[in-house]
């Protein structure tokens, strides 16, 4: 009973499945015969549940005539839909009619037609079909459709896009996953150990810097009396500065180690050739301005 109640509650609030209804345009706009593919939307799972038609028949009141509207059975012989209006011994007029019936799958609806048997002519014919379809008839069409996950899983399996080496139904599946996660967890731990040492060194420096920092004592520095008091304190703690005061630097003479030996320095021949070229160039340039030549 709890399961039934759960199912009822669950089914009372379906996920995003929507029934779309509509009506086709005039099937007889071009001719008195039509194909359903030309007027129905190309939706999967579409069904037809109503027919509206209107026509004007012109005839002699004293003659017999019948007007038939029908759709062939696309899956076999005969007709899935056929209705006849008897106009025998009646004057012509305009007729409007609406037929409502159970859902007929669109795949079963063959070619449609409307025609007169007997004496009479049709004009101003208007034929429309009422249809409906479920947007989630194919679960893969939308992630919000019920059954989408199962359908997606099946599609991935069918197309070989899933690794089947590990079976999720395997009782050891959870352990396998955990082993993979544990490997990654160990790698992170090693990196953390390398990072630890530099942090410790930084803490030593921070302690010396903290002692010398004046951030917390800015106001003290600004006031002369407090400055003097700070200097007195500094003088009273010679231990840190003794390192600098008592530092000895080894002195002595640093003899030259690099000696340049005297010798003849030849002229650079390439320089001479460059100079020659430079002279020639200058002569050529000047010749432009020598108007007498």
């Amino acid at each position, binding site marked *: 009973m709890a399961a039934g109640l759960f199912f009822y509650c669950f089914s009372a609030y379906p996920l995003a499945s929507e029934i779309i209804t509509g009506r086709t345009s005039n099937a007889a706009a071009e001719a008195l015969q039509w194909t359903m593919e030309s007027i129905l939307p190309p939706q999967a799972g579409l069904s037809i549940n109503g027919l*509206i038609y*209107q026509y004007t028949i012109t005839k002699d009141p004293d003659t017999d005539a019948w007007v038939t509207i029908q759709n062939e059975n696309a899956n076999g012989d005969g*007709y*899935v*839909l*056929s*209705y006849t209006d008897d106009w025998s011994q009646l004057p012509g007029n305009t007729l*409007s*009619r*609406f*037929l*409502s*019936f*159970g859902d*007929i799958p669109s795949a079963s609806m063959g070619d449609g037609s409307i025609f007169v048997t007997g004496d009479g002519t049709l004009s101003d014919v*208007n034929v429309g079909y009422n249809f409906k379809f479920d947007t989630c008839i194919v679960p893969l069409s939308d992630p919000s459709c019920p059954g989408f996950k199962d359908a997606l899983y099946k599609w991935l399996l069918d197309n070989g896009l899933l690794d089947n080496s590990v079976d999720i139904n395997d009782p050891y599946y959870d352990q396998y996953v955990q082993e993979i996660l544990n490997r990654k967890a160990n790698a992170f731990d090693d990196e953390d150990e390398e990072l630890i040492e530099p942090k410790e060194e930084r803490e030593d420096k921070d302690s010396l810097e903290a002692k010398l920092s004046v951030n917390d004592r800015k106001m003290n520095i600004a006031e002369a009396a407090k400055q003097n008091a700070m200097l007195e304190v500094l003088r009273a703690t010679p231990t840190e500065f003794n390192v600098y005061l008592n530092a000895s630097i080894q002195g002595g003479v640093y003899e030259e180690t690099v000696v340049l030996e005297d010798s003849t320095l030849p002229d650079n021949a390439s320089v001479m050739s460059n100079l020659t070229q430079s002279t020639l160039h200058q002569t050529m340039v000047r010749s432009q301005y020598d108007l007498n030549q």
Partner: protein
Amino acid sequence: MKKFLVIALAAFCGPAMAHEMSPTYVEFGPSYVDNVLKTDIEIFNRREDVNYYQIEVYDKDWKSISFVADTKIVNLKYLEKKTVDVYIKSNDKDRAVYVCTLSRFIKEDVTKTNVSSRICSKVK
């Protein structure tokens, strides 16, 4: 061949305005007042252009018969349905043949040729 349910509807027409009244045959019965008979009629207004309906009672020659109702001119909003009690004298029971409702227009609202509708139920 499938069975069809034929529904007569104004499938190819635009919005239509309707006046409805029921039942088709009314029956006068005793009321709480001596020598006064009562019947009730239901009026449904589907005319956006009409808000008032006048109740009438006629004999077979279409002559008016005196009657009493909660109000002789019923105010009905669009898509409103109302049941009205109609009282006649016992003496007029055999004379009364039709109980009718007639749509009435407010003079200022009449701007173009319109259709006045009357529906009559027959007394059993």
